[in-house]
């Protein structure tokens, strides 16, 4: 018991600079695991509602409006429905693999969050191989999908699974090349120093694979990697941003579950709880790849404009934004409370919305307390950037038609892969430009 208190105190000490996992602090690591996975489930539920509402408003309709005010309770109603549905296992299916496949997908999608850095100390652990771990574990979900398709013992799921595995494996290559260019960038220290410390005074200036290390490298170099070596970082980001949509099987790359062709792809035969696991895995995988993109290119937990708007005043202003944004959400709720029809039947809905707004407002107010403010700031910026990606996902879905399979492969292998290779070489050359220039001059002198 005494040790437990010590653990808590040791972590609450503001001088702590490592993540609980790296510090070997099992208690806090467990708390973080629960927090992250709880938060993730809430995020998936919220994403479900938001996707329906945003997509609906893009398509001149209202979306869910019946369950709860503005359909806020719709995801919960859906979850209850899915849990109560019969869990059908087709007679000819391979029951064990059919049973275990969704769990594999969910496990792969959730495990990656072990290394996602929500802040310099707000991660479950900081692995030396962070990004490698994320890419590796997220690629494991292919196994689950392939097994689900095969175990269903039916044509459509099988073709869906084959498509999905081919698609994920080929886009992983382009994705990996874009990630590699960022890892090259992390080895740069300030300006004028070469890659891998070749021109550096410190010979140990290696890059890093650690997720926290990557963000810290951006902090030290004073630039988000999307703006590094101006077009190069942006190109890398675009390659990743395209590949990540393909990797998560979302529109316009949602071929494995192309409704109009393969009914529902690899999960055609699934129903109820097991189907909802695939759903959960898809959304958490979207959040996972978005957080990779945010960490690698968009400065992770760092607030925007750290250089242009620096100084303690701006720090304070930016640290107030989380609270303000929650208050704005609350204000939106109250505005809609005022717009609710004044009819006895809407009484409960109005009260519910008002209560929701009150909760949001309360959270916003709590976020103004200095102690809370400093601790949630990182998490807020990280979450806000990820939310931007989530909006993009919905936007793509509302706008784009679907690629055909051969076109998808063409984009992956003939466009993104050569671009990624060129990007990698160019990034390396840019990083070593002083060294290369010196060698070039030597050669010229020799002539």
């Amino acid at each position: 018991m005494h040790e437990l208190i010590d653990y808590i105190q040791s972590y609450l000490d503001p001088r702590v600079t490592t993540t609980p996992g790296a510090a070997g602090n099992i208690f806090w690591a467990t708390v973080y695991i629960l927090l992250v996975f709880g938060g993730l489930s809430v995020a998936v539920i919220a994403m479900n509602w938001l996707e329906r509402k945003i997509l609906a408003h893009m398509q001149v309709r209202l979306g869910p409006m019946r369950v709860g005010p503005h359909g806020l309770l719709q995801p919960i109603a859906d979850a209850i429905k899915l849990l109560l549905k019969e869990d059908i296992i087709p007679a000819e299916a391979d029951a064990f693999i059919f049973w275990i496949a969704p769990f594999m997908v969910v496990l792969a999608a959730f495990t990656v969050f072990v290394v996602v850095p929500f802040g310099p100390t707000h991660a479950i652990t900081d692995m030396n191989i962070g990004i490698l771990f994320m890419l590796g574990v997220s690629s494991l979900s292919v196994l689950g999908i392939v097994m689900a398709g095969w175990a269903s013992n039916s044509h459509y799921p099988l073709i869906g699974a084959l498509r999905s595995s081919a698609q994920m494996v080929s886009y992983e290559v382009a994705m990996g090349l874009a990630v590699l260019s960022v890892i090259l960038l992390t080895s740069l220290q300030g300006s004028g120093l070469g890659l891998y410390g070749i021109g550096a005074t410190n010979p140990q200036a290696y890059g890093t694979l650690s997720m926290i290390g990557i963000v810290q490298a951006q902090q030290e170099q004073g630039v988000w990697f999307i703006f590094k070596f101006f077009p190069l970082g942006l190109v890398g980001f675009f390659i990743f941003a395209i590949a990540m949509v393909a990797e998560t099987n979302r529109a316009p790359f949602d071929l494995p579950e192309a409704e109009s062709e393969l009914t529902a792809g690899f999960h055609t035969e699934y129903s109820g709880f097991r189907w909802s696991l695939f759903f959960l895995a898809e959304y958490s995988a979207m959040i996972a790849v978005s957080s990779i993109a945010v960490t690698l290119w968009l400065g992770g937990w760092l607030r925007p404009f750290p250089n242009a708007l620096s100084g303690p005043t701006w720090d304070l202003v930016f640290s107030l934004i989380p609270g303000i944004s929650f208050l704005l959400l609350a204000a939106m709720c109250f505005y809609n409370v005022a717009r609710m029809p004044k009819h006895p039947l809407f009484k409960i809905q109005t009260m519910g919305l008002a209560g929701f707004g009150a909760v949001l407002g309360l959270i916003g107010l709590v976020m103004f307390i200095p102690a809370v403010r400093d601790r949630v700031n990182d998490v807020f910026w990280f979450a806000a950037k990820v939310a931007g990606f989530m909006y993009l996902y919905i936007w793509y879905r509302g706008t784009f038609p679907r690629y055909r399979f051969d076109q998808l492969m063409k984009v992956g292998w003939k466009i993104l892969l050569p671009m990624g290779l060129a990007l990698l070489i160019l990034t390396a050359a840019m990083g070593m430009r002083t060294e290369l220039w010196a060698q070039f001059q030597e050669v010229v002198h020799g002539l």
Partner: protein
Amino acid sequence: MTDPTSLSPPSLETHVEAHEKTFLDANELVINMGPQHPATHGVLRVILRLDGEKVMGLECVIGYLHRGVEKIAEHRTYTMFNPYVDRMDYVAAVSNGLGYCETVEKLLNVEAPPRAQYVRVILTELNRMASHQLWLGTHALDIGAITPLFYTFRDREEILKIFEKYCGARLTTHAFRIGGLQYETYEGFEKEVKAFIKFVRPKIDEYEELLTTNRIWLERTKGVGVISGKDAIALGVTGPVLRASGVKWDIRKALPYANYKNFDFDIPTGQNGDTYDRYIVRMAEFRQSLRIIEQAVDNIPEGPIMAKVPKVIKPPVGEVYHSIEAPKGELGYFIVSDGSTQPYRIRVRPPSFVNLQALDVMCRGQLVADVIAVIGTLDIVLGEVDR
């Protein structure tokens, strides 16, 4: 030119045999697309023979929606049969009704009065737009763009409102009578139609904005489901599908009926005969329909709406064929009369049914995903295919 007889699809027996083998070593994976499939627009069943994802051939199995409309006609009087034709191409019920009424009028040798003709043209062209809107929404949905569907349905609603106000029905309108119209237009009909034209013009640009220059849409539709003009004629394909292959054939111009010869409009044609050209042709037809409606609304004459037609229609012995340009192609009625109150035989030439024949030619060598696109671009309605 392709000989239509050489295009016959492989027989069913080969499919059954092919099913035993695995699909790696040979060209045979047989997939049943439909009759319950989200992309076959109803209960069309397509048996696909695949090599991987490449279509080696396909066979359409139809008849799941067969209601024996032509047989029913033999036991109904001419007037009684009029509502039945609405149930064939239920998204273009007005055109079906127009074709039937005009055919019977031709048989009776009467002509609808000018005011009726104008109202007929307005409603038919409105219906053509509604049909094209439904086609565009579902076609884009099949290719994966889910948003246009909602835009087109929003605007189609306005057309249906006009129909509802005019004749009380939205889908199966039964708008016309043999010899003219049953109802005089309602108060403010012209104003509402004009308002609709003003409303829908920018909306068409909106659809085009979403799709016409969209890279993915171009890649999905260009060069997909190509059919040459010669092949199309050989297979009897009509309508926008034929025009997209570069054949300038529109019955409204070629064999003018109603009073289409009084209106000034163009026949949009394509060159390549691919899915994209068919899309472009139909989008252009939207605008041409608007032109026709504008001219018609401005010039509606006053006068009677019914010609002198006896209460009990007893046409003379004889036979007649008359066809109109329905939204999907040439819709023809062949009626044989034995002089009684009931037709001896009615045969309908449904454009969807004939166009569907081209599916095999258009899909060979393409990919599975293209079959979906081609089914969508043919704009078939199974109610009309199966009758």
